[in-house]
C-alpha cells in the first residue's frame, strides 16, 4: 500500500559495514515479539489490577482457547503476507470448510447431504475443502494476476454466500466427538487446541527461518523479480502458500466449531480483521517479505487479552467496541514506537 521509502539522507548507507553489530540472523527471528512484549506486559498488568480473576485458571483457559483459534488463522494469513500477497477470504474458509465437511459426510441436525455418515471422512473433507479454497484463491491471484485484495474480497463474499446457501441459515449442531474434541478437549488444564497451536507455531517458526522453502517465501515477498531470476519457482511457491493458508484456516475453524459444539452459518465472520490486526501488531509487513510467526502470535495474544480484559472490567456494553478500537490504535502506536511495525 504505502511505500514510505524515503529519499531522506538519514538512511545511513554504511550501516552494513563491519563496525555495525552482528544482530541480524537473531533479530530476524526475535525482534518482533520483543517489540510487542512491552504492550503485552502492560495489558496483563492492567488486567490483573482491574480484576484479579484475570489470572484465574478459568480465564486463562478461555484465553488459550480463543488465542489458539485466532492464532492458527493468523499463522495462515502471515504465510500469505510474508509472501507479499493478501487473503481476506480466509475468514470464510474458516467457516465454510468445516461446514462443507460436516454437511457432506455427516447426518447432523440442521441439515446434511445425507450421503453417508463418517466422521473421519468429514474431518478429511474439512481440510481438503480448505486446501481447495486456498488453491482457488491462488489461481485467481497468481495465474489470473488479480489484485489479491479485491480477488479475495470477491471470494469472501462468494464463500460466505455459499455457506448461507448450503445450510439455508441453519446451524449445524450435535457434531460427533471426533470433530469437537480438537476444539473442546483439554489435557490437564490446558486446552488441546492450545497445544495444537503451539506445535504449529514451533513448526512454522523453524520452517520460516531454517527451511529453504521458508526462506524462498521471504525472497518472493521481498522482491519477486529477484526471486524469479534466482530460479525460485515463484508461482508454485505462492500456490502452496495459499493452499497452506486455506488448510490452516480450516483447522482454526474446526477448533472453534468444536469449542461452540456447533457450526452457525456465520462462523468466522469478521474474524479476518482481527487476524490482520494481530499480524501487523506482531510486526508482519503488509508489503511482504518481513515478519515472523512468533511475532504474529504475540499480536494474537495481545488482541485476545484486550478483549478479555475489557469484558472482565465490565466496560459498559455500548462502549466496548469503541474501547477495543481505541486500544488497538494505542497498541499499534506503541508497537510502532518500539519498532516492530517496520511495515508502516
Amino acid at each position, binding site marked *: 500500500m504505502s511505500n514510505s521509502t524515503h529519499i531522506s539522507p538519514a538512511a545511513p548507507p554504511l550501516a552494513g559495514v563491519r563496525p555495525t553489530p552482528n544482530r541480524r540472523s537473531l533479530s530476524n527471528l526475535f525482534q518482533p515479539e520483543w517489540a510487542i512484549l512491552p504492550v503485552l506486559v502492560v495489558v496483563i498488568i492492567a488486567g490483573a489490577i482491574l480484576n484479579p480473576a484475570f489470572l484465574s485458571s478459568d480465564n486463562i483457559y478461555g484465553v488459550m482457547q480463543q488465542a489458539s483459534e485466532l492464532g492458527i488463522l493468523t499463522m495462515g494469513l502471515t504465510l500469505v503476507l510474508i509472501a507479499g500477497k493478501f487473503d481476506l477470504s480466509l475468514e470464510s474458509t474458516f467457516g465454510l470448510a468445516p461446514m462443507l465437511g460436516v454437511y457432506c459426510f455427516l447426518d447432523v441436525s440442521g441439515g446434511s447431504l445425507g450421503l453417508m455418515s463418517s466422521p473421519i471422512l468429514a474431518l478429511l473433507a474439512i481440510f481438503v475443502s480448505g486446501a481447495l479454497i486456498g488453491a482457488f484463491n491462488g489461481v485467481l491471484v497468481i495465474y489470473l494476476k488479480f489484485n489479491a485484495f479485491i480477488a479475495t474480497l470477491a471470494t469472501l463474499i462468494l464463500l460466505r454466500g455459499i455457506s448461507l446457501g448450503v445450510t439455508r441459515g441453519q446451524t449445524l449442531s450435535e457434531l460427533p466427538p471426533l470433530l469437537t474434541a480438537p476444539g473442546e478437549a483439554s489435557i490437564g488444564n490446558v486446552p488441546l487446541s492450545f497445544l495444537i497451536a503451539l506445535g504449529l507455531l514451533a513448526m512454522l517458526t523453524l520452517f520460516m527461518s531454517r527451511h529453504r522453502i521458508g526462506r524462498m517465501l521471504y525472497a518472493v515477498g521481498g*522482491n519477486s523479480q529477484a526471486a524469479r531470476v534466482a530460479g525460485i519457482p515463484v508461482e508454485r511457491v505462492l500456490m502452496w502458500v495459499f493452499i497452506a493458508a486455506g488448510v490452516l484456516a480450516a483447522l482454526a475453524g474446526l477448533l472453534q466449531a468444536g469449542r461452540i459444539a456447533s457450526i452457525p452459518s456465520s462462523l468466522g465472520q469478521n474474524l479476518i480483521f482481527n487476524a490482520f490486526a494481530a499480524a501487523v501488531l506482531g510486526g508482519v509487513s503488509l508489503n511482504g*517479505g518481513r515478519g515472523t510467526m512468533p511475532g504474529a502470535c504475540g499480536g494474537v495474544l495481545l488482541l485476545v487479552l484486550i478483549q478479555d480484559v475489557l469484558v472482565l472490567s465490565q466496560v459498559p456494553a455500548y462502549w466496548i467496541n469503541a474501547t477495543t478500537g481505541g486500544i488497538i490504535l494505542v497498541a499499534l502506536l506503541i508497537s510502532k514506537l518500539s519498532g516492530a511495525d517496520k511495515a508502516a
Partner: protein
Amino acid sequence: MIPATRPAVSSTSVNPLAAIVQIDRAVKRFGETVALNELSLTISRGESHGLVGRNGAGKSTLVSVLTGLRTIDSGKFLVNGAAPPVLSDRNAWREIVSCVYQHRTLVPDLSVAENLYLGRYQGKQTISWRALNQKASAELDSWNMPILPNAKVRDLGVGEAQMVEIARALSQGSRFVILDEPTAQLIASEIDQLILRVNELRKRGVTFLFISHHLEEIPQVCDTVTVLRNGRDVLHGDAQKITTTRIVSAMVGDEATGIALTASEHVTRPPLSSDMPVVLDAQIKAAACKDTFHLTLRAGEVVGLAGHSGSGTRHLALTLAGHNPRWAGQIQLKGEKVPRTWNPSTAVRTGISLLPEDRIKTGLVGGLSIEDNITLPSLKTFSRRVLIDRKARRKFAEANRTDLGIACHSVTQAVSELSGGNQQKVLLGSALSPNPAILILLHPTAGVDIASKATILDIVERRRRQGLAVILVSDEPEELAFCDRVQVWVRGEKVAERSGMNEQELVAAMEGFTLPSETS
C-alpha cells in the same frame, strides 16, 4: 583507470559449433517500440563479447532474451546450437547463463549472504546460517568488500549492492556470464576489482557478454565488440583493433559530428566573469560530515562535490535541496536566509531543483506520461485560472522532447517504457522546467551513453550560460571535468577545493591520498 592488462585469449574465430549463442534476425517489439530490429549476433565459447549502444539501442532487451526472461517475436535464437529452454524453466536457464541485470535483483530485507546464494541452498532442505555466512564472508573477502554477510541488503550503499550482485553472478560458476552495465554505479577501485576478476575467469574459459557505456573498459575486457543502434547490430569487430571513434560514430550514426562539437564545448569554456551575482551562500553542519560545509555559488558557476559513496556529498546535496528535515547551519538564497523549515517544495519554489541519482526509485513517476513528468514541478505555471492549459503544456513538453533529444514516439508515452538514458533526459527536463536558479545534479550521467551524456551536459551548459548555477555531485572524473571548481570530500571531511584538477589528482583525492591542496 588501470592499464589494460588483458591476457591474450585465442580464437575469436566464430565457429558455429563453438557458438554459445546464435541469434539471427531477431525482432522484439514493445507496443510500437521496436527494441530488437532484425538483430543478428553470435557469441562463441570462450570469447568475451562487448556490447555497446546508445540508451534504448536494445541492449537490456537482448539481455532479457538471452537470459530467458523474454522471447523474441520472430527470428532464430539458438543456445549451444539447440533451441533455448522454455521461459518457465528457470533452473535450465541458470545452467546456461548467469547475469547481472541493469536493474537491481536483490531482496532488500534478506541478508547479503542469503542474497548471494538465493535459490541455490545446495539441495539440502534446512539452512545452516553459520555455514552460509562463512561461505558468504569468504566470497566477500575475495572481493575485499568490507561488508558483513548478515547485513541486510536494504542497508547497503548503491555501489556495495552492485558489487554483491556481481559477486553473486560470478560465484555461480556458470560458463557464460552477462554483465549489463555493471560498472555504472561503481567507483574506480571497484571497477578495477571487477575487471581483474573478469579476466581471471576468462583465462579459465568463461564466456562473457559485457555491456557498458564506459567505452574505455571495452578493450580492457573484450575480444570482440558489437555495436547496437535502434535494435540493429550496426558494427562488429575486434575490440582491440577497432577505434573508439569508429564505435562512437557507429553508435550515434550520422549525428557523430554534432556530438564531437557539444562534447568538446564545455572543456574549452571561457572563464566565469567575476561580476556574476552570488546566488547561494551556505554553511551546513551535517550529521554526516565532520567538517562544516561552506559554499558560495555565483550565477553561471558549476561547482563539483566529488566523493565516493559514504563521503557525505550526497547528504550535503540533499540537505541543500531541502530533503533533510534535521539540518543545521544556514543557507542564503539570492541574499535571503531560507527558513528552518527548509523542505523540497519550498526549495523548488524558491529556485533549487534536484536531479536525484536513482531515477526509477526517486525521480520519475513510471506510470505517468513524459509530458506529466516533465511538467510536474512547474504545473502551476501552466494553470490558467483553475484548470491546466493543455496546449501550452503540450507545447512545452514537445519542446523539451526535441531539445533533450528524448527517443520516444509521443510525449504521452509512459516513462516506464523508456530506456535508462531517455528516462534520465526526461528527469533533467523535469528538473529544469520550473527554471531554477540552482540545479543540483547527483551522478547525472551514470548509466547514460556517450552521445546522451554529451546532450545532457550540453543542455546544462546552455542553461549555465543563461545564468544557471550548478552543483554537481559525482565521483566520475569525466563528469567533474565539467566543473569550474571542485570540492573533494572523503568520509565527511573536505580534503580539497580547487579548480582545474586533472583526472589523476581527482581520483587520488577521492581515494583519500592527500595532495598539496592550495585551495583556490
